[in-house]
């Protein structure tokens, strides 16, 4: 039992660092530091740089472009990416639909989609949630009726992140209403250019427009775009939700944010913008967060190691999600507290954060509001607790 990296792992870390120092464009790094909104083009550009290096999709099977990395290497890669302020790729492409097609797709689907997914030649979105079926995902109602070689889709999805940019959607649809609600769900790949699809943006409290409603009116999808068997979509979706347990806590990001808050504390104290009492309290709050974050980092490493070893850390992914999102949110609370009344003014979307003095002040409020979603999306923290209570505690 030890926590040290091996020489090989340290060498790998240096390799990742060198690559990031050389290849991450300065303007992207700056945007990330200022917590500004990333455009689709920003994400695509970076993803292609990673893809050229072979690192866009490290968690995929090696034969489809993945990397044969150890858990420690995966951890190092994620941490270095975050500490270097590198954007995260599209989770829908890289963490969700890619692995699903690699595991459950036909050879034709793999050939058609995987390389394009890795390079974001196609931008994907996820069509799971529906009005009336949020945390109770299986109660979804969007219908897909078989008509010859096609499904005809009618219904509505909601909270579809970045549907406005998407070329494709992977969606759960109902092909059978007779049995248990988890049955009769089918997993389809839908070309967003198909006639009958309407996307309506939803403004969120952080001022963003990344959430959408997507309406389907007799949308025809070829049967060849079905993943796996009809009626087994729920199983494929569950597989997807259990994926990526090593990344779900977003430790690297939180560490980078904590480091930024520490820098701010020093800077503001030096400038006389914090009273001695405020400085002391802030330092205590930062130390408290740091303890929890260090603990969570080790918890995540234990989970990763257990996955690699004898397998199955039970409901560990849910624990990582709960504590990880709490810490992400806590970090944004500290920032908005520090911003104070100066943080009231919202930056205009076209405004460049870098052009503002104290860009962190302008970013504090939108970021605080935006991060409320992390304890809601992907199964609310209350649902995660239900899962742990049942799966791990047997309650």
């Amino acid at each position: 039992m030890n926590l040290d990296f091996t020489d090989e792992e340290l060498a790998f870390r240096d390799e990742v660092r060198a690559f990031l120092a050389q290849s991450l464009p300065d303007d992207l790094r700056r945007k990330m530091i200022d917590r500004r909104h990333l455009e689709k083009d920003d994400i695509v550009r970076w993803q292609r740089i990673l893809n050229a290096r072979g690192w866009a999709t490290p968690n995929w099977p090696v034969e489809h472009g993945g990397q044969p990395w150890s858990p420690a290497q995966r951890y190092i890669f994620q941490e270095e990416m975050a500490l270097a302020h590198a954007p995260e790729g599209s989770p829908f492409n890289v963490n969700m639909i890619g692995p699903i097609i690699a595991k459950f797709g036909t050879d034709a689907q793999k050939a058609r989609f995987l390389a394009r997914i890795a390079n974001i030649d196609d931008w994907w979105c996820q069509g799971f949630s529906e009005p009336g079926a949020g945390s109770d995902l299986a109660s979804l109602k969007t219908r897909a009726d078989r008509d010859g070689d096609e499904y005809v889709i009618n219904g509505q999805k909601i909270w579809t992140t970045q549907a406005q940019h998407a070329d494709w959607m992977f969606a759960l649809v109902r092909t059978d209403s007779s049995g248990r609600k988890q049955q009769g769900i089918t997993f389809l790949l839908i070309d967003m250019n198909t006639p009958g699809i309407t996307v309506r943006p939803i403004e969120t409290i952080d001022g963003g427009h990344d959430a959408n409603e997507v309406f389907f009116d007799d949308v025809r999808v070829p049967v060849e775009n079905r993943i796996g068997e009809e009626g087994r979509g729920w199983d494929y979706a569950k597989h997807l939700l259990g994926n990526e347990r090593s990344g779900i806590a977003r430790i690297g990001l939180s560490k980078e944010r904590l480091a930024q808050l520490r820098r701010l504390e020093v800077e503001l104290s030096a400038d006389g913008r914090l009273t001695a009492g405020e400085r002391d309290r802030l330092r205590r709050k930062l130390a408290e967060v740091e303890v929890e974050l260090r603990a969570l980092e080790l918890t995540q490493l234990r989970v990763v190691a257990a996955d690699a070893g004898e397998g199955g850390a039970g409901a560990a992914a849910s624990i990582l999600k709960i504590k990880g999102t709490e810490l992400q949110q806590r970090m944004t609370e500290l920032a908005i507290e520090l911003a104070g009344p100066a943080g009231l003014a919202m930056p205009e979307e076209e405004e460049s954060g870098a052009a503002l003095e104290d860009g962190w002040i302008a970013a504090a409020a939108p970021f605080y509001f935006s991060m409320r979603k992390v304890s809601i999306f992907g199964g609310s923290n209350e649902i995660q607790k239900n899962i742990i209570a049942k799966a791990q505690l047997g309650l």
Partner: protein
Amino acid sequence: MDFEYSDEQRLLRESVARFITDRYDFEGRLRAMQAPEGWSRDAWSDMADLGLLGLPFSEEDGGFGGGGVETMIVMEELGRGLVLEPYLSTVVLAGGAIRHAASAGQKQARIPRIAAGELLMALAHQEPGGLRHGPDAGSSAERRSDGWVLTGRKIAVLHGATAEEFVVSARTNAGLSLFLVSASAPGVRVIPQRGYDGIPVAEVVLDEVATGNESLLGEDGGGAAVLERVFEEANAALTAEAVGIMADTLDVTVDYLKTRQQFGVPIGSFQALQHRCVDMLIQVEQSRSMAILAALSLSQPPAQRCLNIAAAKVQIGRGGRFVGQQAVQLHGAIGITAEYKVGHAFKRLTAIDALFGDADHHLDQLVAAGGIPPGNRGSN
């Protein structure tokens, strides 16, 4: 000891509540927020007609002689509606500075127009790069033979873009002082911004703005004392506003839990969510108690007043954050859309904590004073 409203207070409450119900539903608020000015002149005019705008001014100055309880009643109801109009900026902040510091002539020129809804004002005090809260400023006012020349930069000026006149804090040889500065004076530049809570704010740049002798508000060097008094009143008002928001937000959340179905039952049947609502209710009740304390403290001696209000701000800062965050969480995704009320309530509660000293700031005041002094219920 009496927690009952007088008949007049009850009538006041009913009339403001009716205004909110009839004229200020959530859709109406959204429309007002999306209008160019970010609020509604019609609603403002209604508030003038209801007598709200002259409420805290004395009758001899052209107001209605209302006290802390009357302002509490109004602010709580305005909170329920998440009202966007410049009540705090014009009536409580700038109006407060005028009440406490203005000459008879300065009052006469302004209070009747404020009460009639004709004069919009704003307090321009906060500056970039300083402490987050305090009665100090780096802007300067230089004495000239015929008046003053003001230079400085102000941020987070609530309703600054529509103000006809500003109360500006600036440093003279005598210390911090307040000045009445017309928004149209040469050298004044106003940059409108959207506030995250829907309340418009502005940056106000003063570039060698020449004002006359009559622009000095109160004594030269007496600005800090006036500001502290005004901040106390503003915090008492915000505490009441927060109670209105929190109570309404709890109502909205409980209604949602009763309606929203998941797993075949209303989600309000889940015990963990029920208990969360109870925790919210406890915060609402505790905050209401402190809003009453703050309102009744306004007529008490300075130390008592200051610390009671600090304690109230601690309670609503923490309680408001809890209620806001939990209301969003319990709603799930719909809680974070701009199309639904709770997200806006959450943001306004966030802003209320940030204004005029947050919970931590006021806790420090209590620590420095060695606690809340006894005696708000008779001498001890």
